[in-house]
């Protein structure tokens, strides 16, 4: 499984990537949409885990940009909303089918990624 993690909190994505690598998952990370799109150009990914609130270009917009280049890629969103219900209420029209609320349990993330990838 090849994962792209995108969150403006560098210490979060870098640590999460390291922890995923201990579990045999190849994870790269970026702190903004521009960095993520560069990685997409050069690397192969099965799934992207995107923070909803990214600087300048938000997570939902980044998803669209990535899909233009990689239509088969799958997505999971991470959010700092208080609860899943809170997030659902604010994102009904965004196409965010899969999401996790921060702080994320790594086992839950891996389980969700497997589910999304089938």
């Amino acid at each position: 499984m090849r994962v792209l993690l995108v969150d403006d909190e560098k210490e979060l994505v870098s640590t999460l990537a390291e922890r995923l690598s201990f579990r045999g998952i190849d994870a790269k990370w970026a702190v903004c949409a521009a960095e993520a799109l560069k990685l997409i150009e050069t690397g192969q990914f099965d799934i992207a885990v995107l923070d909803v609130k990214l600087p300048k270009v938000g997570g939902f917009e980044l998803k669209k940009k990535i899909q233009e280049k990689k239509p088969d890629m799958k997505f999971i969103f991470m959010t700092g909303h208080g609860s899943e219900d809170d997030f659902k209420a604010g994102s009904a029209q965004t196409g965010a089918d899969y999401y996790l609320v921060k702080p994320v349990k790594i086992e839950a993330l891996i389980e969700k990624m497997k589910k999304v990838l089938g």
Partner: protein
Amino acid sequence: MTCKTDIIGEIGLQFFGKMSSSNFHEIKNVLAIINETAGLLEDFSEKGIPADPERLRSLALKIMKQVQRADGIVKTINRFSHSVDRPTDKVNIADFLTFMVGLSERFAMMRGVALKPQPPDTPLLITTAPFLLENLVWLCLDFAMDAAGSGKTVGMSAEKAENNGVRIRFTNLDGLTGSMINTFPTEREKALTDALRAEIINDIGAKEIILRLPCDISGQP
């Protein structure tokens, strides 16, 4: 039954909700970093991965840094919540500008804008409605960030004005245009300036907006 909500109450609630939720999002980010860092330490232990003392120290420092960050956020949101305690109070403008930057920083970062408070050299104290002032300054800042544009720095300075009042300047608004100033202030800002006996002046030549505040609104107008 009908319910008529006054405009200041309505925008005040919107402002309170916006600032509260933004700061709580920020705390969730802090918790997420602490969670992953603690998880990494657990991984080292559970999986028998060797980690040198320097690495362990850096992870401990990372957790401490996030605890400090969360403490700062909680202090900011606590002060913000208490700003509704009194209808009017003395406000130290230098301290107020720094506080407003802290409160608004996440919004600025999301837009790729930096905020630079430039506190006055001498203390500037006014008696005003703290929460309404926060709301009005936020609305000015919101407009100023749009006018500055991504990648720019909005300056916030203050100086003494006539009759011991204060002028707060929002500077470096390089993208400020005639059509933009036709839309600002809106009814929202006008309601707040009326309540605070304040005035907003758009200076397109100087690329700034100026908020003029009286020295004391607690007495009769």
